[in-house]
């Protein structure tokens, strides 16, 4: 397990001003690579959930988890990589298309279970949800169309209930 791969960490953090700065500062200072970071409310008032996709070897990511724990405002960290979990990302892709090209793009979008959410004379906006790999594949397939803009949320993840012993520290 020495190779670099992308790990998905899910952290529960107190919803204080500056908490994002602390997490970002930690990653920068220790040289951990963030592939994506998504933050939003959790089920519990006063606490946010962060899903952090981090690149590194298993040892590096272990160290990263431990350093995250040391932040006082971080209540729990779980590494969902390889664990039964559902992870999703939302992407919106604005593609430059002439009217004649629309059906082609619509067909590919359909195959990927995406949605066309906006159409203009010169472009279409595709909304794609799913595993990150699916979105990447979609982008690979549509390379023949000029892409004007992509906006991705970064992955969010949640463990499935049949998960074994928890990977992270028990919530207090």
């Amino acid at each position, binding site marked *: 397990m020495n190779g670099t791969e992308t790990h998905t960490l899910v952290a529960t953090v107190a919803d204080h001003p500056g908490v994002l700065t602390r997490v970002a500062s930690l990653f920068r200072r220790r040289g951990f690579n963030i592939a994506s970071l998504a933050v939003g409310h959790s089920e519990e008032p006063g606490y946010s959930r962060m899903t952090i996709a981090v690149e590194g070897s298993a040892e590096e990511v272990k160290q990263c988890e*431990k350093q995250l724990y040391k932040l006082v405002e971080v209540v729990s960290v779980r590494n969902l990589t390889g664990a039964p979990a559902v992870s999703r990302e939302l992407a919106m892709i604005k593609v430059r298309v002439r009217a004649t090209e629309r059906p082609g793009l619509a067909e590919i979008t359909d195959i990927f279970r995406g949605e066309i959410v906006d159409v203009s004379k010169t472009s279409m906006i595709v909304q794609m949800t799913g595993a990150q790999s699916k979105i990447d594949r979609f982008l690979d397939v549509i390379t023949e169309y000029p892409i004007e803009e992509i906006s991705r949320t970064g992955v969010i993840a949640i463990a499935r209930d049949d998960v074994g012993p928890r990977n992270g520290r028990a919530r207090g």
Partner: protein
Amino acid sequence: MSATNGQSTNGSTAAPKTPRTGGEVVCDAMLAAGVDVIFGMPGGASLPFYDSLYHYQDRIRHVLIRHEQAAGFAANGYARATGKVGVATSTSGPGATNMVTCMANDIMDSVGVVYITGQVARPAIGSDAFQEADVTGISIPITKHSYLVMDVDDLPRVMSEAFHLASTGRPGPVHVDIPKDVFLETTTETAPDQVNLRGYRPSKVGNARMVRKAAEVINASERPIIMAGHGIDISGAAEELLQLATRGSIPVVSTLHGVGTFPETHPLSFGMLGMHGLAYANFSMRQTDCIIGLGTRFDDRAVGKEDEFGPGAKVVHIDIDPAEIGKVLETDVPIVGDLKLTLQKLLPLIESRDRTPWLDQMNGWRRDHPSLKIPDSPDSVLPQEVVRAIYDISGGEARVIADVGQNQMWASQHFWYERPRMFFSAGGLGPMGYALPAAMGVKLADESQDVWCVTGDGGLLINIQEFNTLAAEGINVKVAVLNNAHLGMIRQWQEFFYEGRYMGAFLDNPDFAKVAQAFGLHGVGTSSRDEMKDAIAMAHEYDGPVVLDLHVDRVENVYPMIVPGTGVNSVIEDPR
């Protein structure tokens, strides 16, 4: 201090429900934590706090330092000497940024200091107001935690959390930034009885199964070594360490911060390891089959080349900080816990074993590589002799605070420290200028102890303004300047690694004795061996601060030395 890891009471249970100003809340929190000294300098944003200190001056001593960096270092010395939390304060902007080095120093050396900085008033925050700086933004990566208090009602809780965080688990600096108007406002809030931080639950006793495994590994080893770190001191585990070593006949080496956690004259003590550690300590690390790391982070200056550090040895590592375990060395038995409590569980499982062959081997290295022999020097006084003289004249009972550079290494090598909290040095960050202010904090922690500041000439100049504080406050610190007219450690590296191309290594010093006198201190300069010893004896007897400008050999090097990036095999020993 971390032995009382659990929840700390804030002591303010009896606090009245009468309104208190923000400044009074801070003072009460200090008293609740048993801290009665604060080091600092006032400024516009902290003036309301100084008004509270005015009213608390019968209970809290304010020491006016002459540069805020000295406040932080003095608070560090106070914290390390007492095991309590040190407190330093400054105004906003420049006052606060002057303490940034201190925070970085505390976090590296796991020292609990609470920093109270003034901030511009809330409505002005973010407007680039006079003396505004985003100091909580600056302090994030160099503190254990930080707060910007925007509501005075939060302050009682924040202050008790700050003292709790600074002193428990792995201690560290906590920064509390308080806007001027928050100091002035009043609150009827009191701190909760118990600190309750969901994301902060330091472990207590190590995992029982791992403790048993540690005992098995240790009992089975032929050539174990204990590497004693700062954690022994922090957790108050020196007695348990002594029992572990003697029960198992296990030799002990220490890190720089572990110096004194095991009595250095004990036959099982093999001194300090590392870059300037004793040759025999380092030789032993190459041959050991079991490294028992206690409260250490296996710092690179101690470990050197990782693959020559106990190659093939089993590693047992006990530390309160899980992030230190496995960070540097692959660990066979990882144990997260408070050292004292964990060693108490481990001790009954340790078999007493005869390890004579191993100890014979180590003593053989000790005999053949006498790293502490001071060579003859007819024409100059050697700096090592100064440290020895302080040892002899104080009967080994002085608290020694070393600065950074060659002086630091000699002070660690040529004095035999028998107890924790006798030797203080800034090992992790290595900021020159630490020793003089830290010595003030160590002295005020317990004025019955003799306190010697051993500093280089270069390091002294970095915080020499504190001569004024020594004089004004009558802080009885003895300052021994190992005056080699050089940034000695720099000169040594340029000699060894840059073929003697000296650049920025020479110091054109003032007459430090006269400088001291100008500050109203007793200052003496010497350059002969007899004068040096007389001066130290005089200072030892003198009732008040003394500065000794001791002219020593200008080109003496620190030995032994392991060249960075090489292993112990290529250790440079004293050629004389």
